[in-house]
């Protein structure tokens, strides 16, 4: 790296930014993700790099950063206008945290060579101040800008405390027992006051019962005030009120489950301890101390000490009740679990508030306190539940002939508010007689669609005559009508019945040979595979159309001759992805993903898979391998190289958890787009790290001779943003005008599709390239809201004209 590059931009942390370089920055911004995007383009070709400081490089604190180019990544172009497709562009942080770029090993420096133009974030450069204000003394971002260009070296000092590396002491976590981390990630109702809550449940060494505690992050508890409660070093989270005993949790508790309400105001966790299931419900509150300090009375036991339970107590070997799923139907908690009856296992739904009568299965039902009912009977296993809006789906499988002719039947139960379940609500979707035994059922619902998946161990008879099983999967799905109003799916509104299936025969099942029935692989023998189907998280009403569009299978396998994936490596994580394309009714393989891929480089067995999809199509994966916590970012449809992040360097982690959250609607002053909270326990300490989703640096690159004025309307930096106003959406249309000569005058006008002038936003005005985008409030000249339809937005100036289209639906 040439030395000149390192000289100018490198400044010590805390060095004040020169006044002339500072921008008028508002204060009091919420912490979260900062998006900065740097596109470079030439002759209409946009280029950008995306910088994701999660690894790949180290700063002066020996923290590691990575750059994760996302789908917007485009090659740069040189000063001759030639694309740099075949030239190596490298981004990295310098020792002091400065960002630097190299082209074929030579640093890019200043406008004389490449003309970097900093354009940080669609929300404006003002947002940069958020880092400084939110993390005083810890993070600093410094930008020297002269008329939109970095004055000297294109350096961006970035010192953001990605993680709080110091944990706090849990006390004594018995290493032989797992500690459960339950990150509920309850967000506040708006982007300004969002907070995240987490729960930790653990059993201290020598203790007889588990303890639980609450920790939180949020604007009310900025890092500088985290030195409170039980924290020990001022850098970690705190637990107001300390930890409390979890009543009834004698022995070993298992199967931590959690659920969040769709509107992110409630969350629950549950543990199966001994013969009982306990759940604890948390409601988001603005009074943190009051909420966390008085959790009494909120511990509930699903099963009561009834005579039925007494019968179950006859079995002292296996638990009577196993919890398998929790979900919120709007704000009503639903818990689905199995219960041993002595002669089999039945599936039961705990519905705390409403007594539900299901005619079809009434013969089997008995109720406890009017709140519990069961619908599967005999060898039922692996139920799952998921709800979206006012509809819940419950799926499970039931074994039959478990010894002589193994097989299973798979069921789906549809419940609308669980008060009007009809005879058609229950459907057996598969009958895998003598062929397969269902292991796990997965259900995910989203906007007008639901996806069901079942794992099998499918019978296979190789030439040697020995019957074996191999893993397989089958899926069923429902896709609703397209004419429903997405806003109806956001509480408190409820969609009309026509937007959900009224009968279960409207559920489509792929069948054994159908296009939606996918085998993980055709293997020669049993592979003791640990695998899991993963489905996207639900979304709020803003962009629900891609809510359930991907399914991911993850598994690890040891080194055996009979393996799922033909590889010599052992004990590694493999994955495969299916996804809906264009909301079509069929599942398709992603072309590049026809074969399973390998993740990780270790050889140990992988545990504690946790996966979540973010709203921008990325995934988050955490797992433990040999006691080491790992974190991956799954980008679009594929993991990429060097995206593995070692969360910790130690080897004694007991638990690992992450959750991804975002603000429902980021505001101008709260650029938070989302963040991933990673917690783990090691060495008897609880650790928390905040992983910021991508920090994008946008720069515009162009040769000096390239003409003035406007941003080409391209993929990476479009002319418009928020140009699709759905019903109830009141956000203005953002119009980005980036003139390049100070003398250019820009006119921005709105026309109907037929060319009638609606409004003039700017007329011959000098628009600052780096100010906030121009906005159209969707009114005409008289200030009246315009009607539904398409509208042209025409930006002209400097001899160029760009046209975009805004669509408004009411």
């Amino acid at each position, binding site marked *: 790296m040439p030395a000149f590059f390192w000289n100018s931009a490198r400044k010590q942390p805390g060095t004040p930014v020169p006044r002339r370089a500072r921008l008028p920055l508002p204060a009091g911004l919420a912490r979260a993700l900062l998006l900065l995007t740097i596109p470079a383009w030439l002759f209409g070709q946009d280029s950008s790099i995306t910088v994701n400081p999660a690894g790949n490089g180290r700063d002066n604190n020996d923290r590691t950063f990575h750059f994760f180019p996302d789908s917007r990544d485009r090659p740069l172009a040189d000063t001759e206008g030639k694309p740099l497709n075949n030239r190596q562009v490298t981004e990295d942080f310098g020792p002091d945290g400065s960002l630097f770029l190299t082209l074929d090993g030579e640093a890019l420096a200043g406008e004389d060579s490449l003309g970097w133009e900093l354009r940080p974030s669609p929300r404006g450069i003002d947002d940069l101040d958020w880092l400084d204000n939110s993390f005083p003394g810890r993070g600093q971002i410094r930008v020297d800008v002269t008329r939109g260009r970095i004055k000297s070296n294109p350096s961006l000092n970035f010192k953001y405390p990605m993680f709080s590396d110091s944990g706090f002491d849990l006390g004594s976590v018995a290493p032989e027992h797992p500690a459960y981390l339950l990150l509920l990630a309850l967000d506040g109702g708006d982007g300004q006051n969002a907070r995240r809550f987490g729960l930790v449940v653990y059993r201290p060494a020598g203790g007889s019962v588990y303890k639980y505690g609450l920790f939180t992050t949020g604007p009310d508890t900025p890092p500088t005030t985290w030195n409170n409660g039980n924290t020990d070093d001022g850098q970690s989270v705190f637990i107001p009120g300390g930890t409390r005993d979890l009543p009834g949790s004698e022995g070993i508790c298992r199967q931590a489950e959690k659920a969040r309400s769709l509107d992110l105001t409630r969350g629950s966790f549950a543990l199966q301890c001994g013969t009982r299931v306990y759940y604890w419900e948390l409601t988001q509150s603005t009074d943190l101390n009051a909420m966390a300090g008085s959790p009494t009375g909120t511990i509930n036991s699903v099963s009561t000490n009834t005579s039925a339970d007494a019968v179950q107590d006859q079995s002292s070997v296996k638990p009577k009740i196993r919890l398998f799923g929790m979900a919120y139907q709007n704000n009503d908690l639903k818990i689905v679990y199995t219960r041993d009856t002595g002669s089999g296992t039945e599936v039961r739904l705990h519905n705390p508030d409403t007594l539900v009568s299901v005619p079809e299965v009434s013969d089997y039902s008995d109720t406890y306190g009017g709140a519990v009912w069961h619908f599967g009977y005999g060898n039922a296993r692996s139920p799952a539940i998921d709800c979206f809006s006012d509809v819940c789906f419950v799926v499970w499988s039931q074994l039959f002939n478990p010894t002589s002719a193994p097989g299973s039947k798979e069921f789906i139960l549809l419940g609308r508010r669980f008060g009007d379940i009809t005879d058609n609500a229950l459907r057996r979707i598969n009958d895998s007689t003598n062929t397969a035994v269902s292991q796990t059922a997965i259900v995910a619902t989203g906007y007008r669609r639901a996806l069901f998946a079942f794992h099998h161990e499918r019978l296979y008879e190789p030439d040697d005559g020995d019957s074996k099983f191999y893993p397989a999967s089958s899926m069923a799905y429902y896709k609703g009508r397209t004419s429903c109003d997405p806003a109806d799916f956001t509480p408190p509104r409820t969609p009309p019945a026509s937007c959900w299936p009224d009968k279960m025969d409207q559920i489509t099942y792929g069948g054994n040979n159908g296009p939606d029935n996918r085998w993980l692989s055709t293997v020669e023998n049993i592979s003791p595979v640990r695998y899991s189907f993963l489905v996207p998280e639900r979304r709020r009403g803003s962009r629900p159309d891609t809510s359930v569009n991907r399914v991911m299978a993850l598994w690890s396998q040891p080194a055996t001759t009979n393996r799922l994936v033909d590889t010599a490596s052992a004990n590694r994580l493999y994955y495969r992805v299916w996804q809906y394309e264009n909301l079509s009714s069929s599942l398709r393989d992603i072309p590049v993903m026809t074969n399973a891929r390998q993740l990780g480089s270790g050889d140990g067995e992988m545990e504690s898979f946790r996966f979540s999809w973010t709203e921008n199509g990325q995934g988050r994966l955490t797992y433990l391998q040999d006691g080491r916590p790992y974190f991956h970012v799954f980008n679009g449809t594929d993991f990429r190289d060097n995206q593995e992040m070692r969360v910790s360097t130690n080897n004694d982690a007991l638990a690992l958890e992450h959750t991804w959250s975002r603000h429902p609607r980021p505001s101008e002053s709260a650029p938070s787009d989302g963040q991933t909270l990673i917690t783990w326990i090691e060495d008897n300490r609880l650790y928390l790290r905040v992983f910021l989703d991508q920090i994008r640096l946008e720069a515009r690159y162009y040769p000096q001779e390239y003409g003035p004025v406007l941003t080409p309307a391209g993929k990476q930096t479009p002319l418009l943003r928020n*140009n699709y106003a759905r019903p109830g959406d009141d956000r203005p249309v953002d119009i980005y005008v980036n003139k390049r000569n100070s003398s250019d005058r820009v006119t921005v006008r709105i026309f109907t599709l037929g060319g009638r002038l609606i409004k003039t936003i700017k007329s011959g005005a000098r628009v600052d390239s780096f100010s906030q985008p121009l906005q159209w409030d969707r009114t005409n000249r008289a200030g009246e809201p315009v009607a539904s*339809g398409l509208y042209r937005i025409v930006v002209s100036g400097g001899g160029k004209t760009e046209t*975009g289209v805004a669509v408004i639906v009411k």
Partner: protein
Amino acid sequence: MMKALTICLKPTRRSTRCRGSVSVIFLFIFLAPATLAAEPGIATLESLTLSQSARAGGLAGAYGAHLEEGPGMFYNPAGLTNIYFPQAGFDYSRLPGTWKQSGRESGPGYQQLFYANPTNYGNWGAAVRHFNSGTFDVVDEEFVTETRDAADTIVTGSYAFAVGDLSVGTGFNIINSRLADYSARTWAIDTGLLLYLDMPSFLKRRKNNNVSLGASFQNIGPGLSYSRDRSPLPFQYRFSAGWSLLYYKLVENALYFDYLTVHRQYSELQAGMEWTFFRYIQLRGGVAWSPNSVLDGNKLRLAAGASLSLPTLGNGYKFHYGLIPRGGETYHQFGTTLIFGGQAQGVPWFPSFRSDGKESAGPRRVLITDAEKERLDPLDAQVLILLRQQIYIFEEEKGRFPGNLNELLLYLNKKNIYDIPNPSEGQFVYNNRTGLLLIR
């Protein structure tokens, strides 16, 4: 009631006042809701107001008084009374203004199919229009870009009849609109009047100058709601005038003016001129002016077009082309019309007067009106005047209108007024509603 209405609609002298009253009632019936629908504010479904014909496009939209082809029903449904032969056609057009989405050019356009048919009980027309708004990129808060499109499909049924020199028409539209991920349906009513007048004497430069005056009120309906809110339709009223300046065997010329207002949001004055050479070639041009500037910032827009007629195999074929330059770009519109058994020569001004059967391969059509009889060839004029007179005599003698052609011809034969060798062969087709006599 029905009897009174039947008598009223009969083209007799006694019912003239009655017909006038009916026309006024129709006018009020359709004007009243149209006025109520004209709320201030921006209307949706702009596709209902955009150019719907290649021929109209070449006249800059000044098509409200020029209505002897099927697409005229989109400008004034009363013009269907000028359809004398069954006809079908197709139009395809791009509309001005394109944009780039995902690096490719896109923009609005439309296609339409129409059919029109004259009957003894008035003329009707039907059409399917598909307005494609093109594809466009939508960018969300996170700059995630996706592609959407929009389109409107409009099914139209129209009906028109003549009451003397006044034509009255109405149309009913069923509209399905798709806008990105949403769709909606609604309906709309069009109505119109068209009046043929002799030119005032002080304006007459030649004997057979003629004028047509039209008024249409369109897109009267309940509005459209994609989800929650209902947006009004673009109620539009249009006043039109046409003037035949020249009428010779080889050269014809007509001038058209339209004034329209769309939902009180904007108005436009349109003017077009059409030349017909040798009856088979047409050239036209138009200009429109609006106080509201349009897409390219100009208040004035120009248009031009041409048509070619091919009389073959007893049918007529017309090919239309429209040229619309705007904002440095040029947009092309294409259309074709097939006239079953009709003349394809030129685009005549009031084809009912084109009764020169010696040059026409197809059947001729004549209109029995006093105002137009002077323009008929001498022989046809004599026949028609005679026929009309005899119809009146028939009515006076028998107290009723002749029930059918054969009855009339037998009557004429009996009176030795007009010698029809074999009336049963049906060489004449008489429309007792429109007063038209088709001579085959």
